[in-house]
């Protein structure tokens, strides 16, 4: 079984009455590329802030590489990028050299390796003149500095052009596969995370709705059963009672079943016999985006 590198248990963060994080229990295993998916304001950055010690949790616990005490020392094993933060008047090499000194990393060779990796070698201009994409790439280099075993990346592909996105994905996958680096990456661009992540966590209104691995997710996004009836809420309740199926209701008033999608006749007959008027019942394939929206929708219902 893979070693657990990061684990939160009922992690909660409140600002007054507002819960930015509500009992989030997340597990990051060694070798994962964990995609944390959520809309803007869902709590992704707050989660990272709590993990990195930038915000004090209101409740719950955090364990990094198995320890929940002396987190300051444990955090030294994490490289992170939450809004690339560098000194505006220093060039990429100088900024990385500064970080090398803070992190006690031998700069010789390491800076060249990283600048080459993020394609910023030879760039002499100061950070303040960088495009957003260049800032993101230097942020990634900063996170990878010293080869920490865990990397936290908050919205790393924001502002990147298609080539930049592909390059970023390539770096993450290469570091994961060749060095065994574990990543936790947040994004609201689901299709992109789908290409790189091996596990997923869905977060909405500060709550972690679901954790799935890539295979499970694709199993679930592959097929579902869509039902249109005169009483979707009644049908949902009926099916839950009869088959133990938890359905979700879309914004268009359709009922979606994530299981039993291979038994449309059984579901149809049961609904018909219970007196529901069916106008449509058909299996359908779901995109990751639709799955997420459905998950979010059912969390509101």
């Amino acid at each position, binding site marked *: 079984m893979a070693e657990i590198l990061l684990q939160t248990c009922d992690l909660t963060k409140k600002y007054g009455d507002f819960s930015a994080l509500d009992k989030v229990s997340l597990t990051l295993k060694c070798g994962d590329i964990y995609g944390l998916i959520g809309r803007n304001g869902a709590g992704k950055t707050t989660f990272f*802030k709590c993990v*990195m*010690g*930038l*915000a*004090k949790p209101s409740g719950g616990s955090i364990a990094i590489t198995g320890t929940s005490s002396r*987190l*300051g*020392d*444990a*955090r*030294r094993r*994490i490289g*992170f990028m*939450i*809004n690339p*933060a*560098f*000194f*505006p*008047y*220093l060039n990429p090499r*100088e900024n990385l*050299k*500064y*970080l090398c*000194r*803070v*992190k*006690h990393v031998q700069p010789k060779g390491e800076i060249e390796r990283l600048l080459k990796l993020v394609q910023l070698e030879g760039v002499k201009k100061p950070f303040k003149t960088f495009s957003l994409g260049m800032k993101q790439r230097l942020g990634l280099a*900063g996170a990878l500095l010293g080869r920490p075993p865990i990397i936290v990346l908050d919205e790393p592909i924001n502002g990147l052009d298609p080539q930049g996105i592909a390059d970023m994905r390539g770096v993450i996958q290469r570091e994961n596969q060749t060095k065994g680096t574990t990543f936790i990456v947040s994004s609201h661009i689901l299709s992109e995370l789908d290409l790189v992540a091996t596990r997923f966590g869905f977060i909405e209104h500060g709550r972690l709705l679901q954790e799935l691995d890539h295979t499970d997710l694709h199993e679930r996004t592959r097929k579902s059963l869509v039902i249109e009836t005169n009483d979707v809420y009644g049908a949902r309740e009926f099916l839950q009672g009869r088959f133990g199926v938890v359905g979700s209701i879309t914004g268009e008033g359709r009922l979606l079943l994530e299981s039993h999608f291979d038994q449309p006749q059984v579901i149809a007959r049961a609904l018909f016999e219970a007196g529901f008027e069916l106008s449509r019942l058909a299996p359908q394939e779901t995109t990751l985006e639709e799955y997420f929206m459905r998950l979010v929708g059912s969390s509101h219902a």
Partner: protein
Amino acid sequence: MLRYIHAELYRVFRKKSFYIYFGALALLYGFFVLIRTNGIGAESITNDATQVFAYMPVLVGGYLFAVLYCDDLRSKNLATLIGYGMQKTTIVLAKLVLSVLLNGLIFTLISLFMFALYSLIGYIPSAPAVNEVFLHALKAALLVIVYAAITGVVVYGMQRSTFAVVFYILLSLGVIGQLMMAVFGWDVISSFAPNLSNHLVSNIVVNLTIGATDGAVSWPSLIEYGAYIAGACALSVVAFRRKELEF
């Protein structure tokens, strides 16, 4: 802490505006010395020192404060440091050490520059004049260090560089000191605790330098000065712990 101090020194000395700013100040001072045609002599340097160092807490201290403390806020570097696991106490104490190091260096260099400039125009300062210039430099450096430490509470408590710079300038211009004097002058306070103004940091530093002039250490003033620094650092740490990092 040493690694962080090392990194900070690297950053400061890589900042181009650091050299441009002090270069411009040096040129300006040199220009004023050289164009002065009457009344200049070997001892003019002490008059210069009195006037020049009176502005130093604002002109030099303000810039050093901004470089040391406010650059961290503007570049969100505190998030990087805390995220790396650095303790907030370590950051506050390291900044104090850096402030002492940089102010010591800069005020020594300013004094040496004044001596060099006067020597260049043929007025080699006497030993008492050299002592007096160094005492003015020491006074300015002590003021800048304590002002920066006090403003650290605003830096870490509010994490807004504009507020911090404004507070530092008000402090170094003596505006806050004047306000305190006015408050201490109220009957209800002065009857209860007379001579409180003697314990203002500006007066403590004056006492310290007077003691140094006489070749003696004013221990009560030194202890009070240390208490100001220690109190400011303690409050900075408390403020830093209470305020969530913004980025």
